[in-house]
């Protein structure tokens, strides 16, 4: 007895209503069903395919999709936390030393520490943050590769950021994983709303020194990063940040 392995299913693709995605060139076996928005794992170890959670719930082709709200896939796949943690530990153990960094979450009363060496990539790190802080966080990945953690209870979005060796606060996910592990000093899960405001004006007065002249200005670091060429700027890590613009 053998199973038919013929995979021609352009008919079934059309029947299911999947559209142009299916005709796009891919590295999959021909006819393998794809979901819209779904990205297959590529050779880049860090870019684990992670479909948008909402399309998973929605694309359960039945019209009566499970009632679960979009972002809720806690506890799936059903693997014991013990096993998940043990595998993460084992994967990371071949590296030389642990690298523990503090993790702050806006609104949480105390900080945690995570060992960056214990994770193989960004996805594992975010999963661990999810497990550590709130079981009802979930990871949502947006089309531009930006990763956010979402508190499914009240919809608050958290943007993972980190402080690097230069004292700058950077968005998690831009640089290759190994480079990130080397340069990351601490992590902060920043509320999305805050990340896009200009709240720092009052909270964080910044001293701007330009070309030897001292001048007090109020600037949001995000603005500075956008508008000032990086190699000219050093942000120090004191609570009241000061900005030095070197000529």
């Amino acid at each position: 007895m053998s199973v038919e392995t013929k995979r021609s299913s352009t008919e079934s693709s059309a029947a299911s209503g999947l559209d142009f995605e299916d005709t796009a060139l891919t590295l999959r076996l021909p006819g393998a069903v794809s979901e819209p928005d779904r990205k297959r794992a590529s050779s880049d170890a860090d870019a684990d395919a992670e479909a948008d959670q909402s399309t998973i719930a929605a694309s359960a082709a039945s019209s009566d999709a499970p009632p679960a709200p979009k972002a809720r896939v806690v506890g799936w796949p059903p693997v014991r936390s013990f096993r998940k943690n043990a595998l993460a530990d084992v994967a990371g153990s071949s590296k030389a030393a642990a690298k523990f960094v503090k993790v702050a979450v806006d609104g949480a009363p105390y900080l945690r520490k995570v060992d960056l060496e214990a994770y193989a990539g960004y996805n594992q790190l975010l999963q661990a943050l999810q497990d550590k802080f709130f079981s009802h966080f979930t990871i949502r990945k947006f089309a531009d590769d930006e990763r956010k953690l979402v508190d499914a209870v009240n919809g608050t979005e958290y943007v993972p950021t980190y402080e690097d060796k230069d004292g700058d606060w950077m968005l998690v996910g831009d640089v290759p994983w190994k480079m990130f592990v080397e340069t990351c000093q601490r992590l902060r899960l920043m509320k999305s709303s805050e990340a896009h405001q200009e709240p720092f004006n009052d909270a964080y007065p910044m001293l701007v020194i330009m070309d030897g002249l001292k001048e007090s200005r109020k600037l949001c670091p995000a603005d500075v990063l956008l508008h000032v060429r990086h190699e000219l700027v050093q942000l120090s890590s004191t609570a009241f940040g000061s900005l030095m613009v070197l000529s």
Partner: protein
Amino acid sequence: MTYFPEEVVEHIFSFLPAQRDRNTVSLVCKVWYEIERLSRRSVFVGNCYAVRAERVALRFPNVRALTVKGKPHFADFNLVPPDWGGYAGPWIEAAARGCVGLEELRMKRMVVSDESLELLSRSFPRFRALVLISCEGFSTDGLAAIASHCKLLSELDLQENEVEDRGPRWLSCFPDSCTSLVSLNFACIKGEVNAGSLERLVSRSPNLRSLRLNRSVSVDTLAKILMRTPNLEDLGTGNLTDDFQTESYFRLTSALEKCKMLRSLSGFWDASPVCLSFIYPLCAQLTGLNLSYAPTLDASDLTKMISRCVKLQRLWVLDCISDKGLQVVASSCKDLQELRVFPSDFYVAGYSAVTEEGLVAISLGCPKLNSLLYFCHQMTNAALITVAKNCPNFTRFRLCILEPGKPDVMTNQPLDEGFGAIVRECKGLRRLSISGLLTDKVFMYIGKYAKQLEMLSIAFAGDSDKGMMHVMNGCKNLRKLEIRDSPFGDAALLGNVAKYETMRSLWMSSCNVTLKGCQVLASKMPMLNIEVINEWDGSNEMEENHGELPKVEKLYVYRTTAGARDDAPNFVKIL
């Protein structure tokens, strides 16, 4: 029978070890009830909240072996909030007061404190065996108490517990007079242990049959230990990286050669593939192999090893083995009875190297297969139908397709027919977990054919209340039903309320059940505890919306003689 002396009746009962039978005879008459309860040696409590600990201790004062299970199964997957309950304390305290002859205690998914372990170690002079599975709440200090005070300890088996590490002292607490160890499993202890203490402990344990070390134990120590345990049957390795001199590995090989009784291997952890070759000579005698915690081994490493394990009956492995690797397993391991393939990538829609092809290959090559846990990223009805025909002996069949609601990858149809074939062909099926795209039809099949089914796990499946009702009405032997993210509501919950009396428990999370439905159930069935679990306090919300009751997020229903429990946290409401 009433004219027989008690001793004779008791002697007759001794031929009935099974709990079910003993429960039955105890119902015949008062005399039999008394004789039975005083001679009962082993008690199994499947749900620690189904009965009061004191009552068990009072009824069975001469119990020798007690097994208690706590949290519902879905707690393994973080679906039960911490502090929900499942405390071991009341059980150990009740036993300490009423059952001093206790020799064995087994606990699963319970919260055990160091104080409880201390009490345990001091209360039972004949205590021999402690088995803790998926428990939490204790540290190595608690283990130190057990080691120190349980003079007759023969079995200390810690499986996948969350243990707080307070240093290596605990292992050194076994007194020199302790020579009775038969089984020692500390694989889940994260910290180091003192190598010298371990070697000495093993040296004075001539009856040691099962030894599972943790990752901190070096190859050198392992080799020394194995020289002392020629009768070892089950070994969990320590560290097997190649940071060590090859000389250690030669010592290891010669030590392993002496272990003619070795049948089961586990551990490996971050073993480097080079080290595996030192284990090859053992492979031909192995019946059990657990490589599921060894992500550093790739498909070719795995197949090189497994192809030599011709007597293998139980295999746990990661999905990096791939379909090709499973084909090697199928052609090499003709006696295989249990297979578990775990995912190495834990993300929804993550990549997995095993598909339906690997499963079909296994079913073709291993007709004795009766227990399966299989994580994969795709499946087809055709494959499942083939598997069902090839392996009609399944008693446990758990299939997890990583992406929720994924259809047959070739036909885009639901997987109803595939699972239907499984329940139809496998007449002895006792446990089933289903996944993928599934409609009410699969439940119709389950209700119709799965007559021996005792435990069913459902996720992201079904269209309507009818689905759940098929199961509730059809599965005569159903004991545990756990459901998540499926469109079953009050009608299904209330469709067959008498059924809950015959079941241990029902779990429903992210379904369509409302508080009103739960209240109706509570009023109809007073012998049930209806636990409504909300992690966030929605009680204010509920008062405001009178017309539209919010859905119950998590529901846990179980039969009980104990009434509402008094240790429930404030986010659990018991109706």
